């Protein structure tokens, strides 16, 4: 499965990469919205872990740019407190992950759970 990770926190990206790669997925990583958007369009991932607050844009921007989310499962991650609105304001989103994660293995399992 092609998994795209977009987060400006390298340690998080690294932790997710390690876990998904170990499970045999193809993992692509980006650290900015612009980078992530071009990679998304290029590789057409089946699963995206998207940090809500990125240095150049918010997740909303990327979602809008992509437009059609019917072939992709998107999980939004956020360390931003008091942002329960995110889930409601972004239609087509499959999951929401609040940072800090309870446990990284729960995050790894989300791919199977949502597929």
């Amino acid at each position, binding site marked *: 499965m092609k998994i795209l990770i977009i*987060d*400006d*926190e*390298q*340690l*998080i*990206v*690294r*932790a*997710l990469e*390690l*876990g998904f790669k170990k499970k045999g997925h193809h993992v692509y990583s980006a650290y900015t919205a612009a980078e992530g958007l071009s990679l998304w369009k290029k590789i057409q991932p089946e699963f995206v872990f998207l940090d809500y*607050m990125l240095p150049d844009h918010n997740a909303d921007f990327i979602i809008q740019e992509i437009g059609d989310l019917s072939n992709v499962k998107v999980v939004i991650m956020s*360390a*931003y*407190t*008091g942002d329960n609105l995110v889930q409601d304001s972004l239609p087509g989103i499959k999951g929401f992950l609040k*940072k*800090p*994660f309870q*446990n*990284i*293995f729960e*995050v790894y399992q989300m791919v199977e759970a949502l597929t």
Partner: protein
Amino acid sequence: MLPTSSAWIPKIKILFEDTISGPAFVGLILDSETLNVQKIVNEIGLTRLVKVASSGSDVLSAVEQIVVVTQNRSERQNLIRNISLQKRHASVLIQKQEEEIISRTLDIELSTQEQNHKLKRERQLLKFIKDLGQINYYDEFINGIRNEFKSFHEVSSIFLLNYERKKYLNILTPKQSEEWRRYESTVNWNHLISTESDSRELSQELANLLGRPFGKVISLELDNNHSIIFEIQMSGSAQFDFYEFFSDRKELLKMVFNKINTSESVASVSVRWKSIFDFIKDPMALIDKEYNLVSSNKAFKKTSSGSKCYQQLANREHPCLGCPVSGAFNIQSIQETDLFIGDTKFKLKRYPIFQETDKRIHLHFYADQTQNDELMAELIQSRKMAEIGRLAGHLSHELNNPLTGIKSLAEFHLNETSLSDQERIDLQELLRASERSLAVIKNFVDFSSGDIQKKETIDINEIIKKTIPLVKTSLRNINLNLDLKAKNAAVFINSSLIQQALVNLIKNSIQAIELKGKITISTDNTSAESVLVTIADSGIGIPYDIQDKLFKLFVTTKSAGTGTGLGLSIVKKIIEGFHGKIWFKSSPGSGSHFFIEFPLARDL
């Protein structure tokens, strides 16, 4: 036997007639042995009879004798006549004099009566004037008139009328309260009284108004809006006396009424001002440069009998600390000072009134600062919390990301099988450190952004445990012990606010410890209904002189810049807001114990 007259008459020689003393004869009787002399005298009306011998020489001497005697006699008689004449004159004179005296006496008596009457009138008037001098109000005025006219029993009633208002007539009668009685009336009383038209008309109108028969009326117009009405039941001389009495007093009454009118309006203005001053709940007073109270309002509590402001307001024997009276009396501008009187903090505003050297007076206005300070403290506290909230939000975002990364990586690698023991230990440390850091941030966010309206039943032990990380960094060389032995510790509170209170208290303890020391936080069940939290430190203790006002706002033991003096007042407010109690025990040099007692929540 007596001889007949004819028998002896020839024998009497009439010598002369005594003409002086009326019809009398002096006779000379000759050879009269046989004659009863007395009889003869009676019979012929002789007044005097001289008996002489018939011989010639004897007769002569007898005649001489008679002449002498007669002369003497007539002189005497003349004298007597004169005297009696004079006596007659005198008696006439006396009579006249008596008449004169009587008439004069009458005159005098009459005029004395008149004088007395006049004197009495004047004396009465004088007394009335004196009485009137004491009168300052309408009711006193009408009562004074009633009293003055009380000797006239035929005056059945006296009224003071006020027809200032078109639609109403106000009536004040003696011996009633000071209230005027108001009657609706469209009669033009002014016209009715001022024109002195038929008093029967006035009487009739009053009868209509008061709903009773009304007697004869005498009115006195005091000014354009006021009159006195005398209702009288008299005629003839009684009425004359009354008129006289009344006329003597007319002008006087008008004058006094004028004075009352002025003083009543002045009084009502001054009463209004006084009530305005009394309405102000903050103490106000005029104070001279010797601290003497010139005047003060009700709120300026008079606790003692002294004349000084500090005696009366603060019940002190010396001026209040910080009082500006002695210091800068020359300052002409408004001054402001904070003063503590009892437990209350006042902002004293001082306005100069008179500036002449000898009678400088200032208006002191003592504004109770408690509420102001409370509001200010709450404002400062909420601003502080809002600032902390912003900071916490920012920190949580900045730190949660890398900490999540560290934690996730540590979790991933710990799951690997090919780890050396040291690697495993390091990874576990990494994981624990990241988790601890995340917890601190979460705590911090919860603390600063918590909903302070929400109350919940929560274990106070848990709150204390959650609070410790918030202060841990400040602990330095301080040993913090927890002794949370209360088994029933469920309290109905807002955890965010209680955490604020605990942070404040622990921070105070930390600041009280100069280098090394110990803080112990313990909980215990002191009764079946309450839990006691004790925060004990080994710090410098609280100076005795500020122990009394420690929970007051803006009281601080800390050096300038390190404390606002807000903490403990806020803490007390928070604790009491949840029906808790807070107190302390401290002695300088050997630390402080702060005690908080909460009632246990009932539903647990």
